[in-house]
């Protein structure tokens, strides 16, 4: 099964494609070399024949036919000599090895039968036949063999080159595929192990920074993220078990108790009222959990528009001010006008309401709560709007601040105050959705929860006028 799998790998297919292209280009290169060499040899041969003809013409003009014949006979004797013909006025051969040509003139291609070097060798010959006047025709020919030999040498060289290329390509491709496959297999094995439940496994990174390494690093980051999500899911399950089981069992107990002990309609009514209230509180907790999950999923971002944060903060401060006053606290708002952020109006409203409710709930009577909105963080003109809720209550100890953002977490001392403990988790989720930095600071005394929004683009204020 090893070989077919290797053949199916992407890298081998890629190698095969490269090999094909490379071979094709080698063939083209070979063809070009072949044709140019052949043309060059051909040109050389013709030039040699023409020079020979010119030299024979000189002999003829200097010494007439006898000198021509003598010259031809002398020249035709040497090894590697050209082939000649001196044809008389009657069409007879006077000298040379080429058979009489009759009326044919110019460049000719003569087959083997038309030459006779007297040694019984027959060869293919290219010849130039030129009339020298008075019926005399001289032809000089050269056999093709030299060119043919050169061609053969070139072809042989290229056959070797292409053969070696193919061999190297196939071998190298298979080898590279094998290397690649080994690393892919390693990633696959890690994935399998994770599927089997070993969540701590990570893809090996070789530190070379190549594509596979980058992929491995990305996969590892994804696995880290998944691990965090799993951890938070586990946390939520624990929290649900802890914080929802109690009211659920209380609900069950109430109903059990009513069934066992209720003696009058009034008893039943009381039990039902209590159970209904318990159920409503549970539903509220569920709604909050679902809302947080929805916000954390981030789908809401698609529906973002420009929100008039100033007006939103006014509305919330306005809504809670009488409540605060009735409970003996003071709620003040210091809100810069015309501040806008890109976001979800409903979620931002709920977030601010949660912050104000938290401040009102967790401060002693007589405390002062302030809702503050500034266009920029003080002393930083590049920053975005900052929304904060500040109180002068007891604050949160520094080492507790990170934990209060977690779902259901409530400080021990406030366990007795009502609430699901989900308020700040929702705040954190909404802040993250809006890319806002959530900070818990010491307001000396008291707590300041601040949200630093990212700076909007310059068109922010303009377009918000249309959206509002």
């Amino acid at each position, binding site marked *: 099964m090893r070989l077919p799998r290797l053949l199916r790998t992407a890298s081998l297919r890629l190698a095969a494609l490269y090999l094909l292209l490379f071979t094709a280009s080698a063939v083209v290169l070979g063809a070009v070399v072949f044709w140019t060499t052949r043309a060059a040899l051909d040109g050389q041969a013709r030039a040699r024949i023409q020079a020979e003809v010119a030299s024979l013409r000189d002999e003829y003009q200097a010494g007439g036919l006898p000198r021509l014949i003598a010259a031809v006979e002398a020249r035709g004797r040497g090894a590697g000599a050209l082939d000649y013909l001196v044809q008389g006025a009657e069409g007879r051969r006077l000298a040379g090895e080429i058979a009489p040509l009759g009326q044919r003139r110019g460049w000719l291609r003569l087959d083997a039968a038309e030459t006779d070097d007297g040694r019984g060798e027959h060869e293919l010959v290219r010849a130039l036949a030129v009339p020298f006047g008075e019926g005399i025709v001289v032809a000089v020919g050269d056999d093709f063999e030299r060119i043919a030999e050169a061609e053969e040498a070139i072809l042989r060289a290229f056959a070797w080159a292409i053969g070696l290329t193919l061999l190297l390509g196939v071998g190298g491709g298979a080898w590279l595929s094998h290397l690649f496959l080994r690393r892919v297999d390693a990633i696959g094995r890690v994935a399998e192990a994770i599927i089997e439940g070993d969540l701590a496994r990570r893809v090996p990174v070789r530190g070379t920074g190549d594509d596979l390494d980058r992929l491995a690093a990305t996969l590892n980051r994804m696995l880290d993220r998944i691990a965090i999500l799993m951890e938070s899911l586990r946390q939520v399950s624990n929290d649900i078990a802890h914080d929802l089981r109690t009211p659920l069992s209380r609900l069950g107990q109430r109903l059990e108790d009513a069934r066992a002990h209720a003696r009058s309609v009034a008893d039943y009514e009381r039990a039902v009222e209590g159970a209904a209230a318990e159920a409503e509180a549970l*539903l509220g907790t569920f709604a909050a959990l679902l*809302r947080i999950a929805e916000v954390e999923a981030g*789908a*809401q971002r698609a*529906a973002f528009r420009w929100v008039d944060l100033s007006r939103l903060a006014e*509305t919330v401060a306005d*809504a*809670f001010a*009488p409540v605060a006053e009735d409970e003996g606290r003071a709620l003040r708002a210091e809100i810069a006008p015309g501040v806008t952020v890109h976001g979800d109006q409903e979620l931002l409203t709920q977030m601010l309401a949660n912050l104000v*409710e938290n401040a009102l709930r967790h401060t002693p009577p007589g405390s002062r709560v302030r809702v503050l909105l500034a266009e920029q963080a003080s002393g930083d003109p590049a920053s975005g709007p900052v929304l904060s809720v500040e109180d002068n209550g007891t604050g949160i100890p520094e080492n507790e601040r990170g934990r209060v953002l977690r779902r259901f977490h409530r400080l021990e001392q406030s366990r007795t105050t009502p609430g699901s403990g989900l308020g700040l988790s929702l705040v954190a989720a909404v802040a993250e959705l809006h890319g806002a930095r959530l900070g818990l600071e010491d307001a000396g005394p008291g707590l300041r929860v601040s949200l630093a929004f990212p700076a909007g683009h310059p068109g922010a204020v303009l377009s918000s006028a249309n959206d509002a």
Partner: protein
Amino acid sequence: MKVLLIEDDRETASYVARGLRENGHVVDHAATGRDGLFLAADGGHDVLVVDRMLPGLDGLGLVRALRETGVKAPVLFLTALGGVGDRVKGLEAGGDDYLVKPFAFAELLARLNALARRPPLVEVQAVLRVADLEMDRLRRTVTRGGRRVELQAREFQLLEYLMRHAERVVTRTMLLEAVWDFHFDPRTNIVETHMSRLRAKLAQPGAPELIHTIRGAGYALRAPAQPTQAGGASAGRAPA
């Protein structure tokens, strides 16, 4: 009023239908989107209660189709989907109100009353009157028994909403949505607090209370002498 209930869940449907009938309303019920479309096209309903998730034609598609065929009766969506985007989608499809399951029956009844009996002319009425209480919406003044009552902007909005829905029950949630644009349930008694301030400002020695608290439901602004309308102003009994 005549209500068309389009809901596939039999338990929810019978709970809602029984409650509405006990409060003196006529209920038609369809269990699928297609049946609902058919019944609605017959017309004559004062208000439609439509489940968001129906087999076949879903709630959104159904309401879109109804609006295209010219059915103008107000629609209240019932849904188990509580997401922010879901409500917006429902309203965009042509729904008029949105209620997330599980809901209190009193909440549903109050909202249906508000939808079905929305007097068409109330939007242009400049002066609203209930008993000796008078609101001039243009000059933004309120008088009781001829005496000027000074209200803050939010209190004015609150009273305006109550007066526009006079003789009917409005719930806390309806007020939160209409007056503050809060689409969530704050755990603080915002409405109660504002309402008690408004009451205090409207109170006059010897004059009867106009804003009534309806236990388990909400509030109603009522003229003292006027007899209550069946179903309209009562809290609405939850079905047994």
